[in-house]
């Protein structure tokens, strides 16, 4: 059993859990992910690692409450135990001194992005961080980002906070040279940023989040096309070259079970949703 020692609300419906998982904590590295399972009828959910503390024996992950499983995760409180946390899975990020690194994160993926920001900074890089979201309320962890990075930009789709859209990034790249770019967030963000960096040949690493079940190479549902080749998100990734990734295919594959996911979520809401009344934390 994996006890939740800390639960934080990062933004509306976005929560961070720090859980006891000593074996995982010792081995976790930036870029890797966990498979989290809770309940006898629960599904296996892949979630990117946002932090780890080998001494405390804890590892943390963030999730956005969008479906039945993430909503019911949100009902758990500090002190509750999660049935299973498997990991660390996937390959760690390549972290070394590249020089100037541009780190772009969108909504819930800002949390794991900051783990990379920290790692890049510790490796001696000059780090520029971009926090993006649909709207102001989903811009999270701005203070942490400012502490960890040399410079922070904020952008929202609707312009309610910071820049409106990614136009500023196009302008920035006209005048400034970066040696590496990492993007974590919705597929559309990863696609757009990859397109922006491509003319400048900035190596751009994206963290793909296809549907997964086992997360260790068994099922193949996470297959993606990178450089024209079939790759498994779980064991070949989750990080890939953003300039060679087929994002359009990924979007279609992410949506293959959408009606079922909606049904599941609706039934959960109809049956009273979270019955514990603790979902306010």
């Amino acid at each position, binding site marked *: 059993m994996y006890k939740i020692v800390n639960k934080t609300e990062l933004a509306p419906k976005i929560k961070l859990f720090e859980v006891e998982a000593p074996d995982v904590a010792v081995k976790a590295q930036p870029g890797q992910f966990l*498979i989290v399972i809770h309940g006898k009828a629960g*599904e296996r959910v892949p979630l990117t690692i946002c932090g780890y503390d080998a001494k405390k024996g804890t590892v943390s992950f963030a999730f956005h409450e969008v479906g039945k499983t993430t909503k019911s995760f949100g009902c758990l409180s500090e002190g509750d135990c999660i*049935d299973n946390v498997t*990991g660390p899975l996937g390959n760690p990020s390549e972290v070394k001194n590249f020089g100037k690194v541009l780190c772009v994160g969108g909504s819930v993926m800002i949390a794991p992005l900051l783990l990379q920001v920290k790692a890049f900074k510790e490796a001696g890089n000059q780090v520029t961080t971009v926090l993006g979201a649909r709207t102001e309320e989903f811009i999270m962890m701005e203070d942490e980002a400012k502490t960890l990075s040399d410079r922070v930009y904020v952008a929202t789709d609707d312009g309610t906070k910071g820049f409106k859209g990614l136009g500023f990034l196009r302008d920035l790249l006209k005048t400034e040279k970066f040696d590496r770019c990492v993007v974590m967030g919705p597929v559309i963000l990863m696609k757009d940023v990859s397109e922006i960096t491509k003319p400048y040949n900035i190596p751009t690493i994206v963290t793909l989040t296809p549907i997964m079940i*086992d997360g260790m*190479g068994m*099922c193949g549902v996470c297959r993606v096309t990178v450089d024209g080749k079939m790759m498994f998100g779980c064991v070949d990734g989750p990080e890939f070259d953003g300039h060679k990734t087929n994002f359009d295919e990924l979007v279609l*594959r992410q949506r*293959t079970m959408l009606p079922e996911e909606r049904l599941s979520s609706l039934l959960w809401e109809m049956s009273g949703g979270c019955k514990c009344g603790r979902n306010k934390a």
Partner: protein
Amino acid sequence: MAETKPKPKLNKKAVEMAKQEPKVRAKNFSEVALGYTEEEAQEEANRCLQCPKPQCVTGCPVEVPIPAFIKCIKEKNYAEGIATIKSKNALPAVCGRVCPQEEQCQKKCVISKIGEPVSIGRLERYLADWELKHGSQMPPKTPPTGKKVAIVGAGPAGLTAAADLVKLGHGVTMFEALHVGGGVLMYGIPEFRLPKAIVQNEVNYVQKLGVDLRLGNLVGRIHTIPELMENGYEAVFIGSGAGLPQFIGCPGENLGGIYSANEFLIRVNLMKAFQFPEFDTPIRIGKHVVVIGGGNVAMDCARSSLRLGSEVCLLYRRSRDELPARQEEIENAEEEGIVCKFLAAPLEFYGDEKGWVKSMRCIAMELCEPDAKGRRSVKQIPGSEFTMDVDTVIIAIGQTPNPIIQRTTGGLQSDPRHGTICVDELGKTSLDGVYAGGDVATGAATVISAMGAGKRAAKAMHEYLSSKK
């Protein structure tokens, strides 16, 4: 004059085992084969001739003392019967259901020369099910040797090796990457062939023997094999199976609605998607399912699809005679209404505007002359292309070993072409104290051959540990 006993007349026909009617079972996930009644088991056991030199035992990869347990059935001494099996085989409820007995023990049965062999598998299942009802007895504990061994993977090979080693007094820790034990018995073989409650019962038995099972623990990521050895495990057995799905490599394979057999079976069996939305993992399946392949896994996918309410066509590139699946599974599938299309292979898949598969282009194949190994290859017939409307495709053309352990264990020799770990006949790898067996060493094969490998490796590991100071 001495009175001569009249010889009992041998019945050449085996006692049939009741099955659910095809029309009924095609609509449910309950077990197809229903097992013998006590009377049926008695009648079948009485067909056994109790040969002084039993050939059946030589056909069993784990050397179950077959005539001895059948004798126990005849004498209605069921507790001793099941203990007799369990002296060699920790998973009789599984083997009684999914072993290909017709190619192993029953093939060697002397009665098969004149009629149907004794139904050894059905009798084994009878005893295992008897034990399920009456509770299991534990064998006497062996004094601990003080040696620690690690088993990687809680599938058939690992469970067998773990049971044998713990019975010899070694401290056994079994690391399983998934959140439940059983390996392919849980994620691969469907409920209607092997109920999952039965698998869990067998896993529990191995735990009760004293094996420490660690779930959700992926060796290679949490601990590597060298780290396990540094942490005091004096020997390691790798039984990590063949979990990596193979794809065809034709255009359109990443469309929605195209599943690998592994994905489909993991969803349906392990995650119980057939009970969605009661269980959280969904499966989306259409009206027209095409399963590509001809092995037991393909049959399992086809029969599961049928039970989810679809019309199913099995597409196989060779002919009926070359189908690698068990005869019994082919018959079951056809009885239930699976349509087989032989000598055809896919070329390309086409999708709709939402990226979901809607049709596929195929080509007819013809068989070539057998090669040196007797295997007939196939070639495409030019100009024979045709299109089929489909909304779900399941690709069941084989699995290869997962490479995580090979990649994270320096000095562990593996076959670069098949990804299998190289072992000698005892299961010894290129590293001292490290053994492997089952699908990870042979490529995808049967449950019982994996169990046999687990057994041989356990014996070799015991000798290795005993010789070590």
